[in-house]
């Protein structure tokens, strides 16, 4: 009896200290935590989150046959629940390829290779809607980049880009989002820039947008040349950022100011 009680007591202490250790060790903050209550509520309520309009649209596209092959996503993948856990491990290297693609790139590969349809243009409503639909299936799961050794070099290159000063203002991503996160830029706290909610409904855009679009905003902000549509730099930065956010919870579709 006493031993049992002791055992339970120890178990509780262990669980509590484990939780404490986790909490204390992980000081990373998703952008959600820095938003006003009103915006947090907007993200959390599916009936209010405008990103859910796109998830719904994505679900409709999922079942629609298209392309010369006349196949829908559902014809191969079944219903959307088969996509659970996919968004948290992208970017990844597709079978028979040697370079990583992001989630939108993967969707377009399916379009061209399997459906024999045209790629969706970058930032098109259809592409974002399908990406949101797929990402939404992983909402609540921890970000879990694959341990593919081929990704290491791409990820390292992403980290280099993150740290490289560029633009007329001669700033890097890291200067703001690592060194000065939480401090105020023009009165507004700088977020840590974890890709926890993509595609996001950004109020400034008044629509859904990709991580690429967000990265372009930052580059324009420091007066740097943006990378071309489809440039590998976006995927490498995505790889680095997803690794940096490893273990954080996916919130897609996120709402951000």
């Amino acid at each position, binding site marked *: 009896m006493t031993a049992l009680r002791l055992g339970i007591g120890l178990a509780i202490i262990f669980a509590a200290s484990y939780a404490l250790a986790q909490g204390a060790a992980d000081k990373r903050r998703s952008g959600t935590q820095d938003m*006003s*209550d*009103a*915006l947090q*509520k*907007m993200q959390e309520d599916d009936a209010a989150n*405008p990103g859910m309009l796109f998830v719904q649209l994505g679900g409709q596209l999922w079942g629609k046959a298209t392309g010369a092959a006349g196949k829908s996503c559902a014809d191969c993948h079944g219903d959307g629940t088969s996509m659970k856990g996919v968004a948290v491990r992208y970017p990844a290297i597709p079978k028979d390829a040697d370079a990583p693609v992001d989630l939108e790139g993967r969707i377009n590969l399916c379009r061209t290779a399997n459906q024999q349809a045209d790629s969706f243009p970058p930032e098109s409503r259809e592409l974002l809607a399908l990406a949101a639909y797929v990402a939404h299936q992983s909402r609540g799961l921890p970000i879990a980049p694959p341990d593919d050794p081929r990704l290491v070099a791409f990820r390292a290159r992403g980290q280099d880009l993150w740290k490289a000063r560029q633009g007329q203002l001669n700033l890097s991503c890291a200067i703001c989002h690592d060194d000065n996160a939480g401090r105020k*830029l*023009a*009165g*507004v706290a700088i977020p840590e820039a974890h890709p926890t909610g993509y595609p996001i409904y950004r*109020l*400034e*855009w*008044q629509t859904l947008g990709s991580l690429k*679009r967000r990265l*372009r*905003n*930052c580059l*324009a*902000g*420091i*007066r740097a040349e943006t990378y071309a549509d489809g440039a590998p730099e976006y995927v490498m930065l995505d790889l680095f950022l997803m690794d940096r956010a490893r273990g954080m919870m996916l919130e897609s579709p996120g709402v951000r*100011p």
Partner: protein
Amino acid sequence: MDRRRFLAGTAAIVVLPFGPPFGTASATPEAMAAAIRKVVGDTAVREGRVSLDLPPLVENGSTVPLVVSVESPMTVDDYIKAIHVFNEKNPQPGVFTVRLSPRNGRAVVGTRIKLGDSQKIVAIAETSGGQFWSASADVIVTLAACLEEAT
């Protein structure tokens, strides 16, 4: 709002290429007062019974959540028949008007609005008995440092 003021207002509209949702187009506190007068006529507007829930500080004026709730039994004899929301600085002073009836049960409406700049928002509720009640809120709009389009 008289015609001269309206014309002066439109002439003053300058559209900037980028930035807040309306550029710098703006109504004025006087235009808002005139728009309110048009709704309430000569009836006095009393403060109270209305609660206007808006975040006091918003990072982006493009989508600002707003809820108006009015205390009312919402019975056939005593209900809120309309809620009007006005602003000072958007291009037009009227934001929205909703018409209600006892069939709503509760005089509560939520939506999202655009605010081109920091300003005062006023909500006015009209009772079935012809009274007007109001609440106002000041919202400060900050602008992100790094907007999508380069300066």
